[in-house]
């Protein structure tokens, strides 16, 4: 076990997969000679060269679409978006082409592509650079959506995503790139569609993905220390496919659920989870399902206020207390 950053975990995943499969090619803005806008790909160009690490122009619709086309012929492109916010100019390519061509061809082709990059607010870069589109993308049957919260999950899930034969939208977080976790030195994979209990508890289930998982873990510590409430934290890890059973089993145990996300509340991931929980575990609920999300407005720039806009442990705690 080594203590490495989320960024290093992603980098080693890319490095290992580039070595493992000659069809893996990393494309994106500044991924090669610049060593990555957020240094995720640092050193990979020097190690693997021009063929495997490709700097693209600032042209998301173009290079995302190009990656999709190349994947139809068997390449495994890993497309880096400097921000997932920039996916919006490539939305037609992602949704209509990556998401739908398999279906529209009656299953004749498939799109083994990974599109990855940070999707988070909290860095005071304003609304245009702070989007969290996992709900938009998970709404498209044909796409898969993954959002790791730790370095361990980031590495295992990215390797699995690259080997997956369907398009995987991989959501990272710039605020986590520098955070460290224990990661095994030996190779491992984490299947998509398998949630992880990050903290076991008995009184309420906090269900989240990405950085919101860490928010929930902090909230859980405070709930235990100050309110004698033992919260369970369920990390979805993958949003589509979704590990419904782990979520439902947790709620069946604790009888209370608060779903937490850094996205906006309307039609968010939490809305889908709440719907599933109330439908499939109704008789196990001892309180309404609570939701915590970003305050429902475009991401505000003002640094102190953006902190307030995103879910924090205090908001999770308040929601839990209001349910009991």
């Amino acid at each position, binding site marked *: 076990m080594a203590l490495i950053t989320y960024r290093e975990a992603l980098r080693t995943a890319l490095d290992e997969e580039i070595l493992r499969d000659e069809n893996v090619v990393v494309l994106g803005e500044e991924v090669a000679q610049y060593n990555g806008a957020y240094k995720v790909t640092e050193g990979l160009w020097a190690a693997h060269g021009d063929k495997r690490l490709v700097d693209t122009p600032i042209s998301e619709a173009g290079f995302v679409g190009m990656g999709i086309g190349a994947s139809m012929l068997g390449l495994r492109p890993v497309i880096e978006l400097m921000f997932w916010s920039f996916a919006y100019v490539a939305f037609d390519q992602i949704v209509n082409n990556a998401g739908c061509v398999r279906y529209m061809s009656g299953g004749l082709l498939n799109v083994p592509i990974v599109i990855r990059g940070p999707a988070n607010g909290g860095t005071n870069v304003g609304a245009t650079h702070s989007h969290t589109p996992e709900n938009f993308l998970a709404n498209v049957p044909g796409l898969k959506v993954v959002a790791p919260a730790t370095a361990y999950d980031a590495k295992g899930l990215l390797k699995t995503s690259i080997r997956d034969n369907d398009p995987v939208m991989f959501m990272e977080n710039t605020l986590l790139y520098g955070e460290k976790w224990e990661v095994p030195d030996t190779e491992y994979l984490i299947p998509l569609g398998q949630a992880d209990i990050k903290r076991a508890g008995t009184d309420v289930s906090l269900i989240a993905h990405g950085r919101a998982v860490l928010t929930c873990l902090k909230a859980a510590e405070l709930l235990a220390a100050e309110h004698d409430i033992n919260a369970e934290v369920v990390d979805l890890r993958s949003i589509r496919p979704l590990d419904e059973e782990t979520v439902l089993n947790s709620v069946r145990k604790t*009888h209370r659920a608060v779903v937490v996300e850094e996205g906006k509340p309307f039609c968010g991931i939490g809305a889908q989870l709440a719907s599933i929980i109330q439908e499939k575990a109704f*008789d*196990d*609920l*001892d*309180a309404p399902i609570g939701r915590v999300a970003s305050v429902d407005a475009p991401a505000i720039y003002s640094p102190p206020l953006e902190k307030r806009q995103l879910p924090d442990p205090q908001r999770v705690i308040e929601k839990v207390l*209001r*349910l*009991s």
Partner: protein
Amino acid sequence: MPITIEMPKLSDTMTEGTLLRWVKKVGDNVAVGDVLAEVETDKATMEMEAFDDGTLSEVYVSDGQTVQVGQKLALLLGAGESKPSESKESKPAESKPSAPASKQSDAQKKPDAEKKASQPKQPESPAPQPAKTADSEKAAAAETGQRVKASPLAKKVAAELGVQLENLPGSGPGGRIIRDDVLSAHENRAETGTQAPKPAAPTTPAVVPPQPVSQQDVQIQLGGMRRTIAARLLEAKTTIPHFYLQAEIDAEPLVQLRQQLNTANEAAGLPKFTINDFILKATAVAAAHVPKANASFAGDTIVQYGSVQLACAVAIDDGLVTPVIRDAQTKTLSQISAEVKDLAAKARSKKLKPEQYQGGTITVSNLGSYGVDQFFAIINPPQSLIVSVGAILKKPVVNAAGAIVPGQRIVLALSCDHRVVDGAIGAQFLAELKRLLETPALMLV
């Protein structure tokens, strides 16, 4: 083969079209690509082209007629072909599914209506199944026009344990019954053997909710506790026939005893007693001595409790709660004093557990510390009696010798549920309370 020309579908949204004008007439020769007619669709006027060569033998739809897509418009005959027999080919247009659609749906409606009519009638008043929570819940809802608000889990657990939800106080937000409420009711029932059913809820008069009238006014959303207080006290005040008794007691002996005990406690480093501690202790003893006052109305029966579960009103930030001192008749003054302090602290920090505020059998409410002389509290259902305690007042009194001397007095008041506690019983309880407080040593025996 003769070719039937039908109303074409000329756009993705077209369902019917108007044949504006036949360009070709009966008898005209037609070649592929020739315009046969002009058709008005939902979007525009379009030309209807021929897909086959031949002679226009017959038209079924005249200029200006609107028909459904697919309806026959004309017959085209190839070279040397003749019209097919009437019965087979030129079926009238109305036999196409589109035109008679309304008829068809009429026909479909009929059997439906018949089906409904022939269905067995539901019995007017189905026999109630008291054991089943869901049914009794529905029955209660029907009777009172109010829904029993319980969590899904509470409903499930209630059904399993056979606990009736409609008499349960809910401790969840908005008075929702949660699992713990059901469990503690189940435990209580095991202890007391029965449950007091909820009296019929009042019909709340329809009032226009008040609105803020000026800029200075604020509208405060009801919290869960406020909703519970509002609902339960409205119910108590409007459904319980309250009557009130009051008596002034001589507080001198009580004040003196308290002084002595507190001096001793202070020396021993023990906490001091409050006047309220004595009143709680006296209430517990009096309730044990007059068990008819420690009871609940239960519809067909009265439940007379074998123990005193002494509730004590505690004001907190946004409302009040009544934590319960369990089996208070068995507890010493010191125990009661310590317990009420602890409960009040928990109440203020909102850490009371349901079992700490549920299942009281009699309540004491003391506004003495606010300087209130006297008042009558509203009964805390399903209890039948609440003791209202005023402040200690220094005032002139006529003593046993007939002289006017300075005295210390407290006004005690009772609010009683007349269905359970008659005037004489209330008076007996109040007299007992007075006796104990004026001769506090009696409480110790």
